[in-house]
Structure formats: structure tokens, C-alpha cells
């Protein structure tokens, strides 16, 4: 929990993210929830707003749940386009501001707003609620959210220019309307935070009109007591090197590259573990490992509060081969802070750490990855020392200090 820092100006923070507990799905959701938990620990009252998709319920119906002192109000999204494509929704704005007023929130911390819409920023501001917007991806610059083109390749614009995006989306006028509305909303935020220098720099160079902006590096949950003992015990009894992959079997997360590399590798004396991060265990099937060398297994999703250390104690090398420049890379920090090696794609916020990791360029070939895997296998016992990373408590403390300046 956050230490001695607390807010003197604000009593009740409304945390908003497309997903929230009990739908703990994706890195931004973990950050939103863990920071919220520490704000709560620092004496603030916390209410959360998120979306849900329940076809039996009418659109905009709200369902509340409660855990660890935080009420989560999930608003049912209307049927229609995917959340990423929903950038403005007046009814959603009305619902969120209704919740904010009713629970008595006096400050808002907004995270990923896809599905909820950027209208929340002016909506909450109109109620006199200061707004902190924390950017987690490039949804504010890119209609496709991750700067990955329809053919699966990273677009690589720097800065992002709307005219170059025209070929990526079906409707150019809508692209301009979207950008115009999102930028107008960002302009009203009292503070915009970025998780890395990379995300900050690209956003600023691309003209994101964040009047006040800072880099607020994300935290992680540090390894718990007993982690390193368990890790050592496992390594002592398990002769094979174990690779770990967290995420879905998608091109954007680099799974086709991983699969092709493990199909080409010339040895099989290792294990692989993929974590099914989906909410319903639907992402992975054993048939997806067909033709891959080594012994592969599916690990069920885990929560930050349970299972995180168990997973990292069971692997030696994290494969982080995202095919876009991620703004942060939570799992990379979780791994290096636990003495787990990382093979990762170059660039973006995921490489802004102090550990030595093996890096490949985005778009690297399976042969290049096979070579890197071979090097790790040849150095089976070259386990690195843990690299200290910032904690969620520290992130929450910095956020509290920033709140005082609003």
C-alpha cells in the first residue's frame, strides 16, 4: 500500500477503465486496479467504472460489484462495433457522470476509454471534477489502437500523421472526426500521464494536446516472500530450461513468430508454458503447439494477488515478442524483477528498463528468434540477478503527489 503519502485535496477518486475487477483483463486493467487499490490503502475512497457486454441486459444498465473496499460499476455496452471503434458515446458519458455524482467522486483517474468514449473528459469536467488521464496505448492517436496495419505489420509512424492513416481505415472523414474529438477532449484533461518516455515522446511529437503532461511510470507487484526460495528449488529439480509466453495467440503479440521459431529449432530439451489470459480460457488449445519442439503446456490465467509468483517461479525465459512498440510492458518488469531472462522486441516503453535482455527488431524472422532461443538454451544456468523495478505503491504515491498539484 502507498506509504505515508495521502491526498489532502481529494477524498474520493473515480477510476475509469474499459475493464475492471472482476474482469481483470490486460496490462492497463492490472495497472488501473493495482493503483486504485493503493490509493484506497492511502486513505482515499475509490469507486471504479468499467464496461461489460451482457447481451441479456439492456444497454447502459449498470451492475455493481465490490472487492477490497472498491465498488466497481460496470456499464453494459450497446451492441454494435468493437469497443476500440467506440470513441464517443453521449449516453455512456451521461451514465458515468451520473455515477460520479451519485457516489460523490471529487477527482477522476481515467485510463483506457475505448467503449466508454472520450466524452467522459468534458462530461466530468462539466461537473467540476478534475480529470487525470493515463495513456496506456495509442488509441488516442491510432484508430486501430496499436499502430498495427490491417496486414499485421507495425506502422512505425513517428510522428503519427493522420494523412498516412487514411489507407488503414475504411472511412477517412470519420478518422478526422475521431481525431478532432479525441484531441479536443484531451485538451480538457487537467493532467495527462504516460507510462514511458517513448509513449510520451511519440504522443507529443504527434500533436496530442496534453496541456499538462508527465511520465508516470507504471509499477508492478514485487515478488512476494518465499518467491526466490521457490524459484531456486524449482531450478534445482528441473533440468530443462522453461520458456514462458503471456498473451493470446495473436500476430500482434508475436505468437506466429514464436511458433515458427520453435518449429525450426534443432533441439527439444526444454519446456514451454503459455498463459491463457482470456476470461473464459478460450484462447489456447493444445493443437496450437503442433509441430513445435519441446514440451508445451497451457497455464490458466492468474491474478496479481494469486498465481503471479507461481508462474514466474516456473519459467526461466520470458518471450515478449510484441509486434508493436508497446508503451510499457508490464510482464517484462515482472520478469526482470524476479531474475527471469527476457527475449523481447526492440523499442518502445517495454525496453525502458535497466536489465540486460536479448532483443530482436520488430519484424524479425523465425530464424533470428531460433538463434536467440538457441543461445539461451546453451546458457541454461545463466540466470540473471533480479533488477529492482518500481512498485505499484510507488506509482500510487507519485499519483497522489500529482493530484495535489491539480
Amino acid at each position, binding site marked *: 500500500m502507498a506509504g505515508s503519502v495521502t491526498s489532502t485535496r481529494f477524498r474520493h477518486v473515480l477510476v475509469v477503465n474499459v475493464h475492471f475487477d472482476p474482469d481483470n483483463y490486460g496490462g492497463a486493467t492490472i495497472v488501473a486496479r493495482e493503483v486504485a487499490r493503493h490509493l484506497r490503502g492511502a486513505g482515499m475512497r475509490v469507486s471504479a467504472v468499467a464496461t461489460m457486454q451482457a447481451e441479456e441486459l439492456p444497454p447502459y*444498465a449498470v451492475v*455493481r460489484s465490490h472487492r477490497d473496499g472498491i465498488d*466497481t460499476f460496470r456499464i453494459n455496452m450497446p451492441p454494435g462495433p468493437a469497443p476500440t471503434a467506440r470513441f464517443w458515446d453521449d449516453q455512456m458519458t451521461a451514465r458515468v457522470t451520473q455515477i460520479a455524482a*451519485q457516489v460523490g467522486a471529487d477527482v477522476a483517474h481515467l485510463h483506457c476509454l475505448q467503449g466508454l468514449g472520450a466524452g467522459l473528459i468534458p462530461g466530468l469536467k462539466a461537473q467540476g471534477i478534475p480529470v487525470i488521464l493515463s495513456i496506456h496505448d495509442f488509441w488516442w492517436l491510432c484508430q486501430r489502437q496499436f499502430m498495427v496495419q490491417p496486414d499485421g505489420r507495425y506502422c512505425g509512424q513517428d510522428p503519427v500523421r493522420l494523412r498516412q492513416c487514411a489507407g488503414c481505415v475504411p472511412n477517412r472523414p470519420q478518422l478526422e472526426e475521431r481525431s478532432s474529438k479525441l484531441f479536443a477532449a484531451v485538451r480538457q484533461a487537467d493532467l495527462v500521464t504516460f507510462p514511458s518516455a517513448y509513449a510520451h515522446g511519440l504522443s507529443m511529437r504527434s500533436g496530442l494536446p496534453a496541456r499538462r503532461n508527465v511520465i508516470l511510470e507504471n509499477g508492478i507487484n514485487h515478488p512476494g516472500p518465499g518467491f526466490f526460495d521457490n524459484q531456486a528449488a524449482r531450478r534445482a529439480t528441473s533440468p530443462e530450461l522453461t520458456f514462458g509466453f503471456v498473451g493470446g495467440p495473436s500476430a500482434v503479440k508475436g505468437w506466429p513468430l514464436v511458433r515458427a521459431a520453435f518449429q525450426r529449432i534443432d533441439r527439444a530439451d526444454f519446456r514451454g508454458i503459455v498463459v491463457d489470459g482470456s476470461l473464459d480460457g478460450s484462447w489456447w488449445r493444445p493443437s496450437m503447439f503442433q509441430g513445435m519442439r519441446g514440451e508445451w503446456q497451457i497455464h490458466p490465467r492468474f491474478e496479481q494477488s494469486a498465481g503471479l509468483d507461481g508462474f514466474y517461479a516456473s519459467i526461466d525465459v520470458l518471450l515478449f515478442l510484441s509486434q508493436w512498440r508497446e508503451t510499457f510492458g508490464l510482464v517484462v518488469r515482472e520478469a526482470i524483477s524476479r531474475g527471469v531472462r527476457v527475449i523481447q522486441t526492440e523499442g518502445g516503453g517495454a525496453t525502458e528498463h535497466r536489465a540486460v535482455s536479448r532483443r530482436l527488431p520488430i519484424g524479425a524472422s523465425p530464424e533470428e528468434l531460433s538463434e536467440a532461443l538457441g543461445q539461451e538454451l546453451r546458457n541454461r544456468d545463466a540466470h540473471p540477478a533480479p533488477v529492482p523495478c518500481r512498485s505499484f505503491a510507488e506509482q500510487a504515491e507519485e499519483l497522489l503527489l500529482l493530484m495535489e498539484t491539480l
Partner: protein
Amino acid sequence: MAYGVPNPLPLASRLRSIAREEGTRAALGRVANYGRIRLAQSTVGKAVGFGAAARSIYALGPTWQHLAKNGVFFGARPVEQRHLAVIAEASLPQCTRYRVEQMAGLARSCGMGFAAADQRDEAEALTALQMASHVMFYRLEPGARTWMYLYEARRLGLPVLYDLDDPLFSVPAITGSRVSLPEILTRHFADAAPGILAVMSACDAISVSTPALVEAVRSFLPRPVFLRRNYADQGMLEPVTGPAPVPGGPGLTLVLASGSDGRSGDLAVARPAIERFLAEDRGRRLILIGHGLDHHAGLAPAVVPQVTQVPFLDYPAYLAQLAEADAVLVPLADDPFNLCKSAVRVFDAASAGRPVIASPCGDLPAAVRHGETGWLAEDLSGWEAALADLAGRADRGRRLGHAAREALRQDWGDPAAARVTDAGLTEWLAA
């Protein structure tokens, strides 16, 4: 005495018994459900995906399961803010005004937030529940939607109040009513009574609009029952302008309003007196507002030309209609249903600055000071005396009307006053 396990009845016999007890539709539903289950368990059924779960009858069904699987089924009741959510059967505007909108006045006077939703609007009703510390169901009938709201309130740990203003749960009150309802409607209401009582039984406390209704509920339920009378809200205390009395002008005008069917039974107690009153002076008029008094309320053909029927519009228009008259008639038959009637017609008249001539039935005597703010007419001679008194007044009853309006403001304007609301209810809302 030892009980043996009964032999399982053959399916056909069971179906016959379901059809007899619950109706043909329920029996056919059971057959379909049974068939679905059997087919889902068969090899063929599994192969074609027939084993997939049927859609929940509750819109929240899958969400409840999702919350339960994730260990967050129960929501903690908000402790920092008190906020009342009302989910109402809102198809009757007048009832909604008195029982729902006026509850907002009480909640606010108790320092609570307030939100109300029509029970048919699931998005708003469910949303209101999520942000509430207390919930009130007004006049909800049993059904999947009501059970869903109730279960959701329990999931969220909310105390639940049931509110109503008619003895819809009481077969004696319904069958004892002297209103002229068709037999089929009386049976419909009587058949609905056990279901309404079941919903009331599932709530923590009951609030009702009259002392007689309190007693009626107590005879059925071992639940706290609170009196919450209707009161004069701000809208009723706004000045209503009517024509000034003109001595020697058009004849005296009476008005009678009805919001439900079959009110001619109520009129029976006063009909001869009214007919005589109209017949004495062809310049006198009777205005009938609303429905339930069709065919000129069965009045004698000779006076029908003096009777005007107008529809109920909205509340301000209704008060203006009352103000067109010199006195407001509220005849009520002396029966167990009317025993539970509130004094809203008296309040409406007072709001328009007009006195009532009313039967001393239900809660009306609590709101009428005989000879000061109106007349209480016990029987036919009472009605004749009251009408004669009105006719003898040069001010056409305006002084009584003004006194009624002043009494309304002084005695019935505070929703939290002991006269209006039981202290137990304000304590319940504060808990």
C-alpha cells in the same frame, strides 16, 4: 404419524395435475422443458449442440453467475451515502405522483438522495439499485422481473420496503368492494392478491397510505408496517386560479373526479341528493372528470343536460378543472376497500381552494373539518344538508375552500411530520 414416499405419478397424470393447478400454458412449458433436458442428454442432442444452456429467465442471470464465479457476488451496501431507489409500477400517473414522487420529498427531507424508475425500464431500474442504500418497490406484482429486482437488492445488501395504497393483497377487501366492477375483473384482482402478498412478504417492511391499510396488512403479515400518508407537495401548494364567485351568476357547479372503473357504486350513496340539487336549479352544473363514470354516472335523464364529462388531462389541468367548480364531491361506499382510501381527493380540492362534500370513509375524516373546510356527509340526509348549506352561502363556499387550502398548507405540507409519516419509517430510512 409416519409418511410414506408417494409413488411417482405417471407423466400424463402429473401433467394433468399441473394443467389443473397452474394452467395449460404452464403444463405445455413443462413438457417443452422436459423434452429439452432429455434431448440435451442424448447422444444426438449433444452432437447438435442441444446441451447448450437455455437463456435465463432473468436478464441478470448470466451476470449473477459471472460475479459468483469471480468471487464478487455480494456487493457491499453503501454506508457513506444514503440513497433511496424506487422501482415502481408507474402506469397510473396519479398513484405515481403520490406514492413515488412524494417519496422523493420524504427521502430528501431525511437527507437522502433519490432515484425512481419504472419497473418496465430495466436499464434505469437496475442502475438505480446499484447506487442505492435503500430500495422501495411500489405496487410491483410477482413475475420474473420483480423477482430479479428483489434478488438484486438482496445481492447488494439493500433493505427493501414495499409500498402500496390499495388493499390489492386482501381478498376480503376486493370482494367486499361495492364498486360496480364486472365479475371477471373482481376475480382477476382476487386471484392476483396472493401473488402481491408474496412480493410483500419477501420485503423487509411495508409502507401504506392509510391507518386502515396498516391494519389490513398487519392482519396478513408479521412485518413492520409503516403509515406514510399522501401529503401536500410543493406542486399542490402553488396558487391555482379559478373564477371568482359571481353572486347571481351561473348556478352552483359541482365536480366529481374518478380515476378508475366502476365508481358508480360509490355515487349511489349521494345520487338522489345530487339529482335533487341539480333539478332545483337548471343553472346548476355537475362536471365529471376522468373515467369510470360513463353514461353520466347513471344520473336521472332529466339532469343529464346539466352534466359535463371531461377527460383527465395532467395534474395542473385537473386542479384548474376543480377550480372551475364551487365544491368537490367525494362520495364513497362504506366497504372494506374504501376503508383504506386516502384523502387525496380532499387534498386536490383544497389545493384548488375548494371545499369537499365527502363521505366519512377511509382516511377522509382526518383531512376534513366538518363545517370548516368542507362537509362530511354520513348518509343521504347528510348529503342533502351539505348541498343545501352550500347553496345557502353567498360566497359559494369559498371561505371553506380557503380554510381547506390553509389547513392543507399547515397540516399536510411536511412529509416528515408525525401526522404524515410514522417515525418508524424515517428511522428505517436512516438505518
